[in-house]
């Protein structure tokens, strides 16, 4: 299966509490790439049904202007998740996020329930995508099998709070406690050809710290970051969007490689930098990212 949206641009994924209709009515005004409508931790235990109603209404009635609608369902160890899946599919959610995912089988279990719901509500089979949140050491160690578990799986996301608890440490602000998980996850995700998303940064007053962390995970290779407030969106988008300088250089690389290949030349310099075929895919990726972010209108991709 090759879902057209499986690899769409997902720089920012903003958490929103389904228990609060005022929050979920119009988050598209802030222009995130994706929103994450939460049925899990943000929703009080005795409000799960109300949140589901609110979610269903939102999915059916609100035009999110192209912003991807991800829903975080409750964990597989709760009595809620099956009904959550039915509501997501009935409402037409784009992606279901599986929390506390520990192994490929967790994905398979949810996938089974999604397929059943797609049949029940007459949705196209395979139209509902999945993503897995890794929140435990076990889950992180199983990352590769999780990444390869399903055609529906768009990628994996690190959930730093629960993960550090399992690791018997805490969020320090330096990132040292998340190093291992981040490295393992991005390597596994790339090996499996899926996307990889970083955990939230909860200190809203430390915008500089947020920027540093975003720049770091961008350098590590992540595709995007979970966020908790609209004010974090511009920072993430700025970090994850190629600059005009990057775009011009990538254009030169693509053009030169195409031209030189025809002339039988394998290695050459662009703006003083040695370039060979190994740079081709990277340059193409920069242009694709730039095009998806709306800052490149050229015809090289």
């Amino acid at each position, binding site marked *: 299966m090759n879902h057209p949206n499986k690899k769409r641009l997902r720089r920012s994924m903003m958490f929103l509490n389904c228990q609060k209709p005022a929050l979920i*009515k*119009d988050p598209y*005004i*802030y222009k995130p790439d994706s929103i994450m409508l939460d049925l899990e931790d943000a929703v009080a235990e005795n409000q799960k049904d109300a949140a589901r109603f609110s979610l269903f209404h939102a999915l059916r009635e609100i035009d999110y202007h192209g912003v991807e609608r991800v829903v975080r369902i409750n964990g597989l160890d709760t009595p809620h998740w099956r009904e959550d899946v039915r509501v997501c599919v009935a409402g037409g959610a784009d992606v279901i996020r599986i929390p506390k995912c520990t192994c490929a089988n967790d994905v398979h279990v949810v996938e089974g329930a999604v397929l059943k719901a797609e049949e029940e509500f007459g949705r196209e089979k395979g139209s509902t995508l999945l993503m897995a949140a890794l929140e435990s050491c076990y889950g992180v160690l199983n990352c590769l099998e999780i990444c390869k578990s399903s055609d529906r799986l768009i990628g994996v996301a690190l959930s730093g709070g629960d993960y550090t608890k399992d690791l018997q440490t805490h969020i320090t602000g330096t990132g040292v406690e998340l190093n291992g998980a981040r490295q393992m996850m991005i390597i596994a995700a790339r090996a499996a050809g899926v996307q990889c998303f970083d955990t939230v940064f909860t200190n809203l007053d430390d915008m500089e710290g947020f920027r540093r962390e975003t720049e770091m995970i961008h350098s590590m290779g992540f595709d995007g970051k979970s966020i908790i*407030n*609209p*004010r974090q969106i511009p920072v993430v988008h700025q970090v994850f969007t190629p600059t005009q300088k990057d775009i011009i250089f990538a254009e030169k690389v693509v053009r030169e490689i195409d031209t030189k290949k025809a002339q039988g030349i394998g290695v050459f310099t662009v703006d003083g930098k040695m370039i060979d075929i190994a740079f081709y895919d990277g340059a193409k990726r920069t242009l694709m990212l730039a095009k998806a972010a709306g800052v490149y209108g050229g015809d090289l991709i």
Partner: protein
Amino acid sequence: MINAVGRDIPEEVLKATGREVFQGAFYYDNKEYTKAAPTVRANIDPKRSKLVSSIREALEKCGAHDGMTVSFHHHFREGDYVVNMVMEEIHNMGLKDICICASSLGKAHDPIVPYIEDGTITKIMSSGVRGKIGEAISAGKLRDIAVMYSHGGRVRNIEEGRVHIDIAFIGAPTADECGNLRPSGGKSNCGVLSYAYVDAQYADKVVAVTDCLVPFPNIPASISMVNVDYVCKVDAIGNPDKIATGAAKPTTDQRKLLMAQYCTDFVAATPYFKDGFIYQTGVGGASIASTIYLADIMRERNIHMGLGLGGIATPMVRLLEEGLIGKLVDTQDFDLGAVESAEQNPNHIEITGSEYANPMNKGAYVNQLDFVILAALEVDTHFNCNVITDSTGMITGAQGGHPDTATGAKCTIVITPLLQGRSPAVCTDVTTVTTPGETVDVVVTEYGIAVNPSRPDLMEAAKRCGVPLYTIEQLRDMAYAIVGKPDPVQFADRVVGIVESRDGTIIDVVRQIKEFDFSN
């Protein structure tokens, strides 16, 4: 009779108030008239003292009587004690049928409501009324029809002689024995006394009320002794903490910040945004954030504001100090930073209410505005704004300088969230028209902006600025899609107030509130 904004003004209201219906914002341009004048008692004998020992003595010496008009300013904002102390004394004297002509009234004046109920006060003229007085008027407790005028409209009323003030009570942070009044140097400083100037000039009797008597000469004076009859020293004229609060913390509300960003992006794309531009903004979260964003662009492009006008708060003061603004021309101070700047900075200048906004003088400052950034409770698809009545029809707000600046500015921008609570702020017809749509150019919401079709030049800027652009009808439809189309507010028949256009005509009426009847 239907007026120029489509509101039906009952004939009996026109008769009772002696006014015409609104016929357009520029209807009285070029009108010639003779100004009113006060009755003045000469003060030749240098031995005579103006000091009185109490408000009671002042009232008696001024010949207080049933049916008189007394006036007040609102520079002490929600910290004011003067209105209550004077009205209590008037009540204690057993006087009836009093007209209050205030520049504005707020929650600080809740204690005078019983005097409305017992007939001490039978008429109120004010920019607006918040709190319990608004509720009392909306409930039909005031005998006569309340008049809500703009800041400029109030001055015009007095200068034209439509309102004649018998006694003006002017709260003054400092006064000398001769009646030179200043807004600073005391314990209840308010920065400027702009709105009180017309009272001092046109009232028959003028009483200065101060809690800080200073030696003569208290100059340069905002109000000169030549216009003051008596000086009354009291314990306190107000609560300093509520007169001049600390500067509001810049908002972190992302919705307001988004509106501010859209507003700024639009402003910066217009041809009026050039060196020396003249600007006024309010003190709401989005307005202040707009000023902060705009300052970034001013620094970037090396553009300076020639003049910042109107009510002033700390963010504008900081820009003056930074050299990004040439002059602050001030009619009201909203926080301590503004009060201190008004006192100390020679480029921060106090002007009178007439200079600020009177439509019937020979040219007010508002006419020079390039931009004014305003807020509104409702804006309709004709661009009419409501800043007075809430979603239940209750009087809860004030016109202030809204229609004055909207008429004067080359580019009038109204910022409003698309929804106010669960009510659509952009709607088909506002509950009450306070500012005519012909004077409103752009509406900014967090969803995008709409430009008045009468301004194709601004439409060009809107297309360039990168902000989502809609028609006003589209914005309304987006609001209705979320919260539904509301039924109009239901009122009782009785007219309890008129909204006076700045030129003295009636732009709308406010009727008595009533319980919503679901059977209709």
